[in-house]
């Protein structure tokens, strides 16, 4: 039937010249069979674990500043940390819980960062020949990864110094106040310099990290205000952490 009514059907044929020939398809990569955690989810893990660490830093800074209230107040605060909730809770109960939480947060933060950094490196196998000019955010953003590594090594040294007293002149058995003052005594100025650099590094990490976490969680609004607040909070934390070692190094606290 169709044959006899062929004139009713409009048919179009396209003559493919050289110009309209189909492009040879670049063979697509085989799909990964293993389901991976999405990069967005890993970033959410980084944001939440980072937030935990920021709250810790605020509490840590507040505790440090008690050094200006004298040895008794500072040591008393340290003792209270170990006794809070007692006798309802065991000795060091709350503190141990906090420590476990911090270790989990740090582990999650670092694990996600490493996986994401590897994925990023994988996504650009060939680098640009021309130096890629940054058109956006500055130093703080670019130093997130290596800055994080530096902060990690700083935290290890810091724990050996102040918590376990291994590298501290006063050793483990001295009071927290004595350890702190001995750690930053003027003769150990190089240690103080190392601390100052590391704390500034933490501040830079937070400058990008604070607003970036909100962005990752989809909560970021009004970027100029948000970024300015992040910079302000980072600056406050940096100063709050720096005044204590500097005060000791310059002999204000003895």
């Amino acid at each position, binding site marked *: 039937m169709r044959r006899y009514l062929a004139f009713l059907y409009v048919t179009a044929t396209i003559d493919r010249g050289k110009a309209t020939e189909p*492009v040879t398809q*670049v063979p*697509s*990569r085989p*799909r*990964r069979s293993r389901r*991976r955690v*999405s*990069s*967005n*989810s*890993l*970033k*959410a893990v980084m944001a939440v674990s980072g937030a935990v660490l920021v709250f810790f830093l605020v509490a840590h800074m507040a505790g440090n500043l008690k050094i200006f209230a004298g040895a008794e107040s500072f040591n008393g605060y340290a003792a209270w940390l170990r006794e809070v909730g007692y006798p309802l809770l065991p000795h060091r109960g709350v503190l141990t819980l906090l420590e476990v939480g911090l270790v989990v947060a740090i582990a999650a933060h670092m694990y996600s960062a490493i996986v*994401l950094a590897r*994925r*990023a490196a*994988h*996504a*650009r*196998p*060939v*680098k*640009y*020949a*021309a*130096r*890629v*000019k*940054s*058109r*956006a*955010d500055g130093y703080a*953003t*670019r130093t*997130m990864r290596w800055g994080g590594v530096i902060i990690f090594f700083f935290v290890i040294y810091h724990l050996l110094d102040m918590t376990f007293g291994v590298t501290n002149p006063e050793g483990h058995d001295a009071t927290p106040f004595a350890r702190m003052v001995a750690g930053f005594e003027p003769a150990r100025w190089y240690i103080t310099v190392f601390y100052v650099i590391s704390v500034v590094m933490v501040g830079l990490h937070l400058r*990008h990290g604070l*607003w*970036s976490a909100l*962005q*990752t*969680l*989809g*909560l*970021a*609004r009004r*970027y100029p205000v948000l970024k300015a607040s992040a910079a302000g909070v980072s600056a406050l934390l940096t100063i709050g952490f720096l005044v204590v070692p500097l005060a000791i190094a310059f002999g204000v606290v003895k």
Partner: protein
Amino acid sequence: MNLTLKVWRQSGPDDDGRLVRYEIEDVSPDMSFLEMLDVLNERLILAGDDPVAFDHDCREGICGMCSMMIDGVAHGPQKNTTTCQLHMRHYKDGDTIVIEPWRARPFPVVKDLVVDRSAFDRIIQAGGFISVPAGSAPDAHATPVPKLDADDAFDAATCIGCGACVAACPNGSASLFTAAKITHLGLLPQGQPERGSRARAMVEQMDEEGFGGCTNTGECTAVCPKGIPLDTIARMNADYLKASRKSG
């Protein structure tokens, strides 16, 4: 003006490729960047050489084909423009210009400066649409859209899928591209039924293609010829996390 070009030449996907130096004379400042390359190609053809392959189509900044990394900046030094809208008056006599293709594993080089951006198509296919009955056109006032939402949706919809965001991103992430489409459809009433599944499917496809994750550097939005803002990525993240929480 006379210029020195260092152009990435690569005969095919399996070739290693290299930067090749060309001296080009008598470039008019009125030429667009692509016209300058046209002149180079004419001279290469006359000399019996293989012309430089580069993508281009509309040459008025709306098709998203002319993808080039110019001196380490996607689409060159001018803000909010594509390569075809860049004019040679921004260069001066004696300048050296390095021209490279987009660099990302999901964007394999086809030839010279041409990359295959099919990965973007697959991200769109994963969820960049609305499933509606395609009957007759509805009345314009049948579905009210608040003016500000319409504006923001339109801003996001101006994405031309050129891939500059991926090229500029230190992580090779396609977040700005994906977020632009998720924002465009997620802000409009027609996009609501599939809002969650769309965000999940598109984000997961983006990962599947091998793009990196977003670290909020803002490099993408700085080179985007359409100025797609960073808050689209916040919307994508919010939609994605909400959808993931719901369905685990």
